[in-house]
């Protein structure tokens, strides 16, 4: 199954009731999948909106009505959705936003890149808020994390971003779905569906009293602290005895893994650390790794964005190198192996006898 289709199917199985899309490469297959498959399901709606801005505001409305809802786009389209995401955050509304990203800035290229790390992990829109960011690295994970995104969004009443890229969205891999579609579509208890028999509720994003807003900010940040504590996830690969740890996420992590397998075969003690949640970022685990590993190599398909978080985690205790290919160029495992090997010898790291 195509990565994009896997997201669509997983969303349907997670009980997504409303999907709002607007075409953009390389995520069109997801919109197409929802047009065919979601619209056929009882009680579900697929709408191709007239713009990205419109689509995210439809998500805003659907979320207010208490249903599981999703939109998807690619980098420039996600930029347009940022205002809506900020509003969702302010109203404490769950939603899933998929970014099958491409190279940037501007309209960029349609090839796979990871240049939206900052945009995804730093809130993206205006105001003091966070979104959970999940970074899958295989088609199986696109499906698994889509399901998790809906659960997290509801649990913490927060917008969740799935950050994929053109390579993951376009490629086909075998996968298994771990859930069946629910027989009844979930509706949140706080849904706004008429105030019959109860006092009316107003959900708004504007307040003229700073102290009222300050209280909202505090309450959001208490929740963000809780998310950091409970939901941070990562994958570690051969780090126990590693002299060099490669830190990479998403598509670049699977490329790094291939390079590391070959590096190990040559006796180089290399491991990999892959954040699965980009926010909350696994600072603690990386900090722990500084006790056992000598050097870090951050590898991204951009000019160096996640490296800032790695630096925060390492706190200057170890040296960090960077290798990146921006613009939609997909580096090969052998290219990354060359970088690893060169660095390994330059830094005089120990080779397994």
């Amino acid at each position, binding site marked *: 199954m195509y990565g994009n289709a896997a997201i669509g199917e997983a969303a349907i199985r997670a009980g997504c009731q409303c999907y709002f899309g607007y075409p953009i490469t390389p995520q069109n297959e997801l919109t197409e999948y929802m047009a065919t498959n979601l619209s056929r399901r009882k009680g579900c709606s697929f709408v191709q909106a007239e713009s990205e801005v419109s689509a995210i505001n439809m998500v805003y409305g659907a979320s207010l009505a208490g249903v599981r809802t999703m939109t998807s786009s690619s980098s420039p389209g996600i930029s347009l959705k940022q205002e809506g995401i900020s509003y969702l955050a302010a109203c404490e509304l769950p939603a899933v936003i998929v970014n099958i990203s491409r190279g940037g800035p501007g309209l960029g290229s349609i090839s796979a890149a990871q240049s939206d790390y900052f945009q995804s992990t730093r809130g993206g829109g205006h105001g003091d808020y966070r979104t959970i960011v999940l970074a899958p690295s295989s088609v199986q994970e696109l499906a698994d994390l889509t399901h998790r995104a809906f659960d997290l969004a509801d649990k913490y009443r927060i917008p969740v971003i799935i950050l994929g890229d053109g390579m993951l969205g376009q*490629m086909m891999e075998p996968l298994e779905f771990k859930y069946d579609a629910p027989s009844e579509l979930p509706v949140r208890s706080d849904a706004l569906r008429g105030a019959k028999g109860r006092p009316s509720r107003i959900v708004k994003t504007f307040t003229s009293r700073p102290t009222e807003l300050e209280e909202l900010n505090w309450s959001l940040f208490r929740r963000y602290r809780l998310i950091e504590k409970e939901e941070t996830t990562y994958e570690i690969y051969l780090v126990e005895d590693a002299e060099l740890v490669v830190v990479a996420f998403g598509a670049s992590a699977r490329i790094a893994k291939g390079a590391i397998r070959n590096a190990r075969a040559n006796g180089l003690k290399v491991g990999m650390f892959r954040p699965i949640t980009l926010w909350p970022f696994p600072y603690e685990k990386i900090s722990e790794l500084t006790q056992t590993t000598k050097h870090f190599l951050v590898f991204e398909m951009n000019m160096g964005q996640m490296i800032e978080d790695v630096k925060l985690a390492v706190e200057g205790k170890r040296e960090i190198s960077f290798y990146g290919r921006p613009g939609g160029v997909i580096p090969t495992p052998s290219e990354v192996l060359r970088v690893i090997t060169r660095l390994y010898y330059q830094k005089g790291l120990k080779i397994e006898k």
Partner: protein
Amino acid sequence: MLIKTIFAGFGGQGVLSMGLNLSQAAMSEGKHVTYLPSYGAEVRGGTANCTVAISDEEIASPVASSPDFVVAMNQPSLVRFQNQIQSGGLLFINSSITEPVVSRGDIEVIEVPASDIAEELKSPKSANMVMMGAFSKKTNLVLLSTLIEVLKNTFKTKKMLIDINKKALMAGYDLF
């Protein structure tokens, strides 16, 4: 073992179907597999290609910068991909419509008159399956029987297409 193959040709020749066919066969044989269609800014009637990676272990990258096998269904594909093949790799050429001009001596060139054979079978659209048959015989990547099973599944709603595709597959297989 990690084997990467690029299938390339005109849009409409069924190159993406060949890749899908091989991917599904490899998947049902329990192998790790990735399939990546070309995703450039391609033009209608222009070239299409896809990359299939098959391995016993997890596949790092679905992209092939130096494939083991290349299937060139037309002239532009031959020009574009022949220099990327790994030394010792195989190059399949649809010799019915392609001038097999190959500038390298370190690869094996396999000429398959796929379009002519498909024409003889009165099913010109099955040239891709003729090629697939030859590919399967020469590379041994997946069993012929698995490919036939995949065909049956692909055309389960268009049963009349199974026979002709199978015939084309066998014709290619029996060439070598």
